[in-house]
């Protein structure tokens, strides 16, 4: 038998993740081929080396350094000017009691994400996609915070997911572009709604990322049917060069985290935190 196992197959085998359909073929081959068995053992030795490498220890006195660095951030000094203006806009839309009820995260106000939430609310819903259902007016009246955070968070997540896939697509897979076009079109529409509001609220950082995102999304949405692997490579290098994924992820993960926190928590207990 000279159809040796590929390294990919050996890797999957070592993780116990060979597809069911391939399992007996891989097992049988390993049982009968000394060469592949040797390759498997070499791989296992490397894996063991990784597993048994002692963890890197923190420097001496690290705990004290951590606390010294951390403690100042546990205090929330005053309310920053950005925070104040965002709060004001927010109050106009939702009313002061809603904010003081504590359901909009402090970081959201400070970071200008309140503008995004408001944008989503004013817009009612994003064009197309499955966002329409959860953003229905009735639901929004009951729990506007969670629904809206979720809508904006979904947009950021979906955009991020697409960029990750593009960034990781094999270079010879230019048809990836064709497959993503409809999705990119939806994301452009949603992106514009949020961008408009971010411009109005003067949040430069959010405007920057949304504008960069729009350019990339448009490129995907408008890619010609005969897009080449060069087109894909260009797009990939732009995603990397502009650090789009990271910048997007920072906003999206904060949004998600806060959503989870709010869902898991009773809001009254949050108010007792030393930070607030």
């Amino acid at each position, binding site marked *: 038998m000279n159809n040796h196992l590929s*390294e*990919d197959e050996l*890797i*999957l085998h070592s*993780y116990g*993740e060979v597809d069911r359909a391939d399992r007996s073929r891989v097992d049988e081959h390993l049982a009968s081929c000394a060469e592949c068995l040797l390759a498997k*053992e*070499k*791989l296992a*030795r*490397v*894996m*063991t*080396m*990784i597993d*048994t*490498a*002692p*963890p*890197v*220890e*923190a*420097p*001496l006195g*690290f*705990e*004290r350094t*951590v*606390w010294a*660095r*951390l*403690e100042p*951030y*546990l205090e929330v000094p005053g309310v920053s000017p950005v925070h104040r203006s965002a709060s004001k806009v927010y109050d106009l839309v939702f009313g002061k009691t809603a904010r003081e009820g504590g359901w909009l995260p402090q970081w959201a106000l400070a970071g200008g994400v309140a503008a995004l939430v408001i944008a989503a609310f004013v817009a009612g819903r994003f064009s197309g996609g499955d966002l329409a259902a959860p953003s229905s007016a009735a639901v929004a009246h009951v729990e506007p915070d969670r629904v809206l955070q979720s809508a904006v968070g979904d947009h950021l*997540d979906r955009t*991020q*997911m697409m960029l*990750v*896939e593009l*960034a*990781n*697509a*094999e270079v010879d897979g230019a048809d990836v572009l064709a497959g993503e076009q409809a999705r990119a079109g939806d994301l452009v529409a949603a992106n514009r709604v949020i961008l408009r509001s971010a411009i109005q609220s003067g949040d430069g950082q959010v405007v920057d990322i949304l504008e960069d995102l729009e350019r990339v999304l448009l490129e995907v949405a408008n890619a010609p049917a005969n897009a080449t692997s060069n087109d894909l490579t260009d797009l990939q290098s732009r995603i*990397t060069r502009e*650090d789009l*994924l*990271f910048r997007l*992820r*920072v906003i999206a*993960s904060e949004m998600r*985290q806060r959503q989870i*926190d709010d869902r*898991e*928590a009773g809001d009254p*207990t*949050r108010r*007792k*935190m*030393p*930070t607030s």
Partner: protein
Amino acid sequence: MKGMDERDPSVVAKARDGDRDAFKALVELHSRYIYSLAHRMTGNAQDAEDVVQEAWLKAHKQLSRFEARADVRTWLHRITVNCSIDLIRARRHREDAHDPADLEQGPLSERGAEAQPTPERVAASVEISDRVNEALGLLTALERAAFTLRHVEGMSIEEVGAKLGMKTSATKHSIFRAVKKMRVALEPYAQS
């Protein structure tokens, strides 16, 4: 490591009630663990320190929602993994610039000072640790994230994909590339 958690329940309860000293005690008790975990995920001291800082800030914010009967270490572990994933992406440019030649040049200078080998640790294991960390340094951010979650955290490839927002096939290829790089870098040092 687990044994230390037995001291936690009352400390956690106090920290939840806003007791600053209790929170400080948690920081002092768990920071070294978080650092090692973050270092394993990010591969360098500066990033690991940043993750520790970020993880504690997150933990502090979430403390009021922490279930008293849950395991603190497990909770901190999860927060740290998430913070590491965020930060790994932040360091992406630098890591993409890494060249395999780095391995020939010996340990990166920034890594030399941090190891703090304990006297009882044998030289060989320090060397293995360095080699593994150098090899990890050859991976791109996504390769490293995917590899660490699969290999070290023991998530299935599908779970890793969900965590990183990638399709299963893309995740698989990231892991393949990572393991191949690790194998090429480490095979000369791996003894039977």
